[in-house]
């Protein structure tokens, strides 16, 4: 059959299925509960996009399964808390009547700090194992995770730390059909902006071009006169910065504690596998799929009496994708 016919046919089928699903959902559930699940799913997805886009480039270009990405995310949250407390201690910084919320310092400062930590990690440890089997990357980053998790625990302890959301995001917003916490809306918007900026960065800048080309063949990129060693460090730091941004923006919603990364890293790996390594688009689509299926699955599964259905389903979907399209939905067929 003509490939374009198959392609458009499957797209049409998919659209039809989607419309039917939405229609059924609208008829079966109240608008407010649907909206709530939609927003929850979107927030999960946004955070996952930020985390897995760093992971996907490190895996796609550097060929390292970077488990320590989890601890970079955690570090982001902790750096955020520290900067937040510092600024609080110094006193609010005001220009006339307008005071800058300490949150913004965290949002800018923590990713920079974590980016530096990431660059150091890459330069002194991870860069030494690029020529080896991927398993060594996994082992090495696991060791780093163990070390850094304990360091975080020694410095800040086991107990969750409090982290205030900025003043203007307190309370609830009336969306017409439901009330929703303002901070969560803020996360949605801020996350979307960061995702958009990342996309622009990858499309528009020279370094974005190097990154996208690096997924295809780093050797050729090197032959074009790019300093690969530096570029690899920057790629790693780039991932660390995105993970730290995710860490800061989730911390007012979730507990800031040393093990917080352990829960999310597996989800990020699933996104990576579904979306394909080295593909930003894959990370976005994979994260949306995962986030939405988690939130709506909980809604539907809860009603059917199988609240765990989605979790099991997600792993099955991941296995299915790997079997039918091992490189993921948007991944390279042949990684060099």
């Amino acid at each position, binding site marked *: 059959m003509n490939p374009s016919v198959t392609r458009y046919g499957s797209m049409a089928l998919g659209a039809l299925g989607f419309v039917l699903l939405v229609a059924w959902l609208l008829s079966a559930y109240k608008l407010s509960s649907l909206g709530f699940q939609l927003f929850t799913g979107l927030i999960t997805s946004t955070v996952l996009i930020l985390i897995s886009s760093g992971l996907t480039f490190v895996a796609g270009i550097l060929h390292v399964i970077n488990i320590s990405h989890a601890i970079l995310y955690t570090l982001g949250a902790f750096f955020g808390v520290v900067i937040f407390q510092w600024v609080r201690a110094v006193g609010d910084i005001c220009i006339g009547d307008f005071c800058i919320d300490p949150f913004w310092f965290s949002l800018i400062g923590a990713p920079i700090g974590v980016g530096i930590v990431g660059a150091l990690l890459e330069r002194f440890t991870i860069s030494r194992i690029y020529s080896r089997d991927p398993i*060594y990357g996994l082992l090495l980053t696991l*060791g780093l995770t163990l*070390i850094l998790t304990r360091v975080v625990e020694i410095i800040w302890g086991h107990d969750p730390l409090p982290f205030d959301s900025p003043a203007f995001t307190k309370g609830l917003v009336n969306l017409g059909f439901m009330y929703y916490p303002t901070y969560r809306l803020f996360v949605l918007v801020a996350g979307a902006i960061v995702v958009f900026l990342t996309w622009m960065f990858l499309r528009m800048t020279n370094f974005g071009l190097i990154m996208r080309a690096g997924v295809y063949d780093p050797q050729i990129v090197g032959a074009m006169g790019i300093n690969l060693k530096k570029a690899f460090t920057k790629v790693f730091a780039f991932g660390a910065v995105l993970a730290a941004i995710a860490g800061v923006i989730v911390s007012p919603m979730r507990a800031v504690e040393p093990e917080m990364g352990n829960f999310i890293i597996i989800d990020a790996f699933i996104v990576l596998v579904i979306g394909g390594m080295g593909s930003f688009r894959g990370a976005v689509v994979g994260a949306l799929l995962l986030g939405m299926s988690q939130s709506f699955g909980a809604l539907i599964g809860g009603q059917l009496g199988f609240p765990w259905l989605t979790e099991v389903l997600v792993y099955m979907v991941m296995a299915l994708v790997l*079997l039918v399209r091992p*490189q993921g939905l948007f991944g390279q067929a042949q*990684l060099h």
Partner: protein
Amino acid sequence: MSALTQPRRAKLPFALGWIPVLLLLLLLPLGAELQLFSNFYINLFTKIFIFSVLLLGYDLLAGFTGMVSFGHAMFFGLGAYTTGLILIHSQALFGLPPELTIWLGMLMSVLLCAVVGMIVGFLSIRTHGVYFIFITLAFAQFFHSVAFHWSDVTGGENGLPGIKASTFLGIDHQTNYYYFVLAVLLLCYMLIRRVVNSPFGRTLVGIKENEQRMQFLGYNVRRYKWAAFVLSGSISGLAGALLAQQQLFVSTDLFHWLMSAEVIIMTWLGGVGTLIGPMLGGAIVIFFEDFFSSWMADNWLMIMGFVYVMFVLFSPRGLIGLIEKARHALTKGKE
């Protein structure tokens, strides 16, 4: 490093004298009897032996066939849960005498893991490298999820307490169980060694070295990989069965991805593809875990992390690699 020299390395630590080591292990409970050290160490060594069985199974897959699985916790947990459930329920359900429950547990664990290994293996062996790592991780997480949520049977996040130890030959007593596990370990070791040195095992090493070449030579590569996966899974399931009888408690931690990671760490720390190496690695990790955790609480993990990083960076072939280097340096000095 050619294909043919690889398995022969497994013999190396034998030259260090395996008879004294075995004698020492056989006499170890005597020391506890004479109050030289507490019974705690008998238990610790039993745990080391159990992990050795698990690691033997894993090494067959990762070290000899070159299929690095990130989901071996799946078999360990499955074996442990199966045996745990049988030890709890089989007396009431089938009126099985407590002497026999461990045998039924071990048998069912191995069979179930073989079946699961067939299904998971059939699907997983189509992928390679990083994708194989991820797909095995996905399946293991699937089992973790099931164990976590199917609480009517598995006890969910509370785990499976109240396992009744089997009384076969008095293995509900720790010293007897020590010898029982040691015997199982020796049998497993001999079996895996036999397999590795058989034409089948040579084929597996050939697949690890160059899968395409083996295909061109006319081997049905997939079938060999599948068989290796199933065998490896069954052995690891047996280890899970042994653990249930020892700990008398089974929890979802056994299915957690950190357990799979620990298996990988132990294997690579010791020296992958050497059989003795992973057992050594497992012993060291478990021993250090005990030593450091009583000495510095949770911070031992930091020390272990540091050790892993150092090994990956400076001795990729693990302890066995270090020993070989040392031997090489010594013999060179003599010349």
